[in-house]
């Protein structure tokens, strides 16, 4: 049963999951790096508010995130109307909508390791770089980034794996359109609901093994970098 071949629909669902996880991971790293850097270095009082907002997806049920996103992206929401004015099609029930939802939902898993890693670099180390003639951007690239590399590895893996395993938000805003928005996690749900346990097993084992191998690689790399993974 487990060894039986994947159906085309399975492969498409796996492909959508992989694509979604990769795109989400890359976009989140790009978006969170400056924000995490700001949070790690600012003395502003707004910081705690931003931190709380960024941590919200950790505690909210995915359906709540998905529900508000649906309202926001729908034809009567700000996001939906804005998209219409730009002549774009609505993001709900599209791959773009999935990416947006996944980014929101995995945000804390990227923000917190990055912020912790930047904070661990230490004010004094950056001041030393400043007195040695390095301007702010130079301090960021030649001191902060290399010292925070373990945080980046953690953030990337967590974003990827967490998006791969995401279910609720995708279901709420992406629907369940095979070939477009149906991820492997949702395909498993469909199979299980239709009592097709063999097919559900096939995809589940694939995700299980994939995630396991991924984490083993990460922990091995981190071990070689000598310090523990920085996880929120």
């Amino acid at each position, binding site marked *: 049963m487990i060894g039986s071949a994947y159906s085309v629909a399975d492969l498409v669902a796996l492909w959508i999951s992989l694509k979604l996880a990769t795109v989400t991971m890359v976009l989140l790293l790009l978006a969170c790096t400056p924000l995490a850097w700001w949070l790690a270095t600012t003395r502003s009082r707004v910081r705690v508010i931003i931190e709380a907002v960024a941590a919200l997806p950790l505690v909210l049920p995915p359906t709540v995130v998905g529900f508000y996103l649906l309202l926001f992206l729908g034809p009567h929401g700000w996001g939906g109307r804005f998209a219409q004015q730009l002549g774009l099609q609505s993001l709900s029930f599209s791959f773009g909508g999935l990416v947006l939802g996944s980014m929101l939902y995995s945000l804390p898993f990227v923000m917190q390791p990055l912020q912790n890693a930047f904070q661990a670099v230490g004010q004094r180390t950056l001041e030393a770089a*400043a007195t*040695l003639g390095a301007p702010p951007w130079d301090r960021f690239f030649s001191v902060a980034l290399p010292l925070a590399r373990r945080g980046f590895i953690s953030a990337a893996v967590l974003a990827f794996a967490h998006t791969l395993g995401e279910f609720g938000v995708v279901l709420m805003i992406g629907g369940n359109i095979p070939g477009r928005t149906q991820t492997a996690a949702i395909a498993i749900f469909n199979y299980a609901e239709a009592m097709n346990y063999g097919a559900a097993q096939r995809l589940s084992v694939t995700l299980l093994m994939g995630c396991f191998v991924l984490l083993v690689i990460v922990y091995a790399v981190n071990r070689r970098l000598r310090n523990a993974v920085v996880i929120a």
Partner: protein
Amino acid sequence: MSLAVKVSLARRDFQLDVACEFPASGVVALFGRSGAGKTTLLRCLAGLERPAPGRVSLNGEVWQDDHNFVPPHRRPLGYVFQEANLFPHLDARGNLEFGLRRVPAAKRRIRFEEVVEFMGLAGLLSHRADQLSGGQRQRIAIARAVLTSPQMLLLDEPLSSLDLESRAEILPYLESLPDRLSIPIIYVSHAISEITRVADHIAIMEAGAVVACGPLQALLTRPELPLAHLDEAGSIFNGVIAQHDVEFHLSYVSVAGARLALSRQSAPVGAQVRVRIDARDVSLALKPPELSSITNVLAGRVIDVTDDRDPAHRLVRVDIGGQQLLARITHRSVAQLGVSAGLAVFAQIKSVALTDRL
């Protein structure tokens, strides 16, 4: 040649208010107990704090005034922190080259090899920060700052985080810096023993303000200042090595027309030296002593007698051929000998220490 500073900085439980002009040559020690504001003042000089209002200029070049603020990376100075603060992702060579690479070739005044040689770092270049001892790390931190060819060097208690052995290892390097670099050095410390070895000038800080600033030699003995009342209070004399005594392993230094014996020195005859005499090692007599194990005797005249922290003690300043000697003797002796201003006395000195700087 001066460093002009006028800064105010308010913190929750601390207020820094300094208006002072430091000589921009030799070594200026910033002295005070912890919490006096020494480090904060140093950070203002470096641009790591932004005092308001603030005015900082070195030899007329303005680093901060009401309209301008030159950020730390554009100030031509080297800064050494209490902790070495090496970059953990770089080896020793990477740390040393970090600042060097950011200085345009035309502005470099000191060569990499030269600094590595005189700071004794040749064997350490490929080591990472965590493979080095505390003393080695601090030597690299000093060399790293020196390699930026700064116009001024700021040292924030560079020895305070080190054990005694590492301090002894680094002090000779610190002492040789002024002659090697010929740039002004501001040296923060709360240890007067370190200061008497390296500094020419001293600024005394208390509760966020500079209470006195001037030549070290003069301020050490001023009874109204805290230095004269420290346990390790003392005075400094300039002298010249006059003779070496091979048989008894002694060297003689001529100071203010007299000769002081101290343990055999390596400096050649004729070399200028600075000797330190602790106030508690000095006793006073009205006649020259005849048979005594104390051979170092200086003739002088009492300048004044003041109270000391301990009510049993008095501080006596004695003029020795124009230089000032500080003696800490008991109140009882002052009364018995009738010590008062103008009295001719003979100061017997139990031990003399050579401070290595000229």
